[in-house]
């Protein structure tokens, strides 16, 4: 018992369980009142959401749809990392590259991804490619900016000792600058993938695709299937939670020296 009370996993479960419990009580209090403060139509109990999820996963292929959403996210994210990390490294390392591209980065940073929808639809048409493009766009800037910071924040003393040892430019980059900027790069990737999740759901709601979690949410909303809507939202949140845990795990493995 004592071991259980000292375990962080125990407390990681306590919070969500208590939340569902509280939600259940409030929802059934509301629904059983003779004059409900919130119209019954808009309130779903945990049991209703649970059975909706059972139905959605069982008969309506929500699993496949979740995978589609995940796929759009992962592909968009991967493309942005593949472009963003080298671009950020170049911008951080070469001042001339930085000054040539600084305008674009800061210009685009203040334009929300949603505002670019029409442009991407124009280029990629309605459907999956457009959504992936929006995700790529949104993640790219976060990754680029963080990578630049990483390169810029390399300790001066380390560069100095490398210069004294007359390390070549390439060695300096590969052996010092790149490993040291990894912690910033990873922080960028982690923020980007969470943000990417938001963007992919949002895009699915407004760019015409037939399948996907975002599509589910907006469809359920329009026909007042509140239980299904919350079901899809819960799945979205769980995927986001899993992705963040995965990213943290990868970060710990790759940059094991960080924070020690």
């Amino acid at each position, binding site marked *: 018992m004592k071991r259980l009370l000292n375990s962080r996993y125990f407390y990681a479960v306590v919070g969500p369980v208590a939340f569902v419990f509280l939600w259940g009580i409030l929802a059934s209090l509301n629904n059983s009142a003779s004059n409900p403060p919130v119209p019954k139509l808009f309130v779903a109990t945990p049991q209703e959401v649970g059975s909706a999820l059972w139905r959605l996963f069982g008969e309506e292929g929500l699993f496949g749809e979740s995978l589609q959403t995940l796929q759009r996210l992962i592909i968009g994210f991967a493309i942005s990392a593949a472009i963003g990390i080298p671009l950020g490294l170049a911008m951080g390392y070469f001042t001339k590259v930085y000054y040539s591209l600084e305008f674009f980065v800061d210009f685009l940073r203040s334009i929300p991804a949603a505002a670019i929808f029409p442009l991407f639809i124009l280029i990629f048409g309605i459907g999956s490619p457009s959504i992936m493009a929006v995700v790529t766009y949104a993640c790219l800037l976060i990754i680029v900016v963080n990578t630049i910071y990483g390169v810029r924040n390399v300790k001066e*003393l380390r560069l100095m000792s490398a210069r004294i*040892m007359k390390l070549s430019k390439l060695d300096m980059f590969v052996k010092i600058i790149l490993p040291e900027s990894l912690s910033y790069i990873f922080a960028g990737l982690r923020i980007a993938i969470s943000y990417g999740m938001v963007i992919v759901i949002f895009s699915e709601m407004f760019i015409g695709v037939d399948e996907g979690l975002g599509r589910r949410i907006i469809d359920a909303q329009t026909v007042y299937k509140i239980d299904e809507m919350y079901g899809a939202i819960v799945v979205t949140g769980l995927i986001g939670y899993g992705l963040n845990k995965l990213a943290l795990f990868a970060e710990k493995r790759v940059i094991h*020296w960080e924070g*020690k």
Partner: protein
Amino acid sequence: MPASIQITNVSKTYQVASDEQSIAQKLGLKPKDRKPFQAISKINIKIPKGSFTTIFGPNGSGKSTLFKIISGLEDPSSGSVMINNQSVSDARIGFVFQNYRDSMLTWRSAIGNVKLALEARGVPENERHDLALEYLKKVNMAHIANKPFYSLSGGQAQLVSIARAFAFQPDVLLMDEPFSALDFQTSLGMMEALLKLWQEEKITTLFISHDIDEAVYLADQVMVLNPNPGSIRKVIPVDFKRPRPISLISDKKFFEVRSKVLEEFRRGVKP
């Protein structure tokens, strides 16, 4: 003895903004007038090959500037530095910083850090491991060779950085207060390890110290500096025979040399 480092008439003047102007600079304004600030003035000294020289001086005596010039990171405003009759850019310099956390590669193992010096020297890959291990053995750190650098204690980390500096086989070894961040007991052990390695490798060493006992105990000669601008006040020879037991520090003769150094230091600081 042939001179290993020959410093001739070296002065260094920086163009810095005046106080008000440097505030302006911090606010992002361009400083209008800059005034010259002389860090060191007319340093002349020949340092014999294989000797151990400690540099003892107050704040503002240009110790770090001198090291930057000898290591080729900065050029002197006037004068010249020759190392084994070569210009500094052709010489090999070993450098040990006080801040090992920021100067070593925290993501590598202890031995990986020593290997960096071998990589810089161009030692073929298949010879690096054994050679690096040999240098770690010289500072009694072979047992932590594969530990990640971040997990080392302060003393261990600094011994690894000393091993790295020696592994570079430098013409000159520069040490900038390497033991200042360590506790007394640890730094005693470090001094012993350093002297042992130095006697084996016979590398000309310059050592900035702010601890007078350390400065006298380690040195063949103590170079006392004047502040503002930094210049050589006096070079005091220390000729106790080596190896020196640590008990030397409480010896009467040691105290005499120490008093001489302290006297020069105090005269230099007095306005």
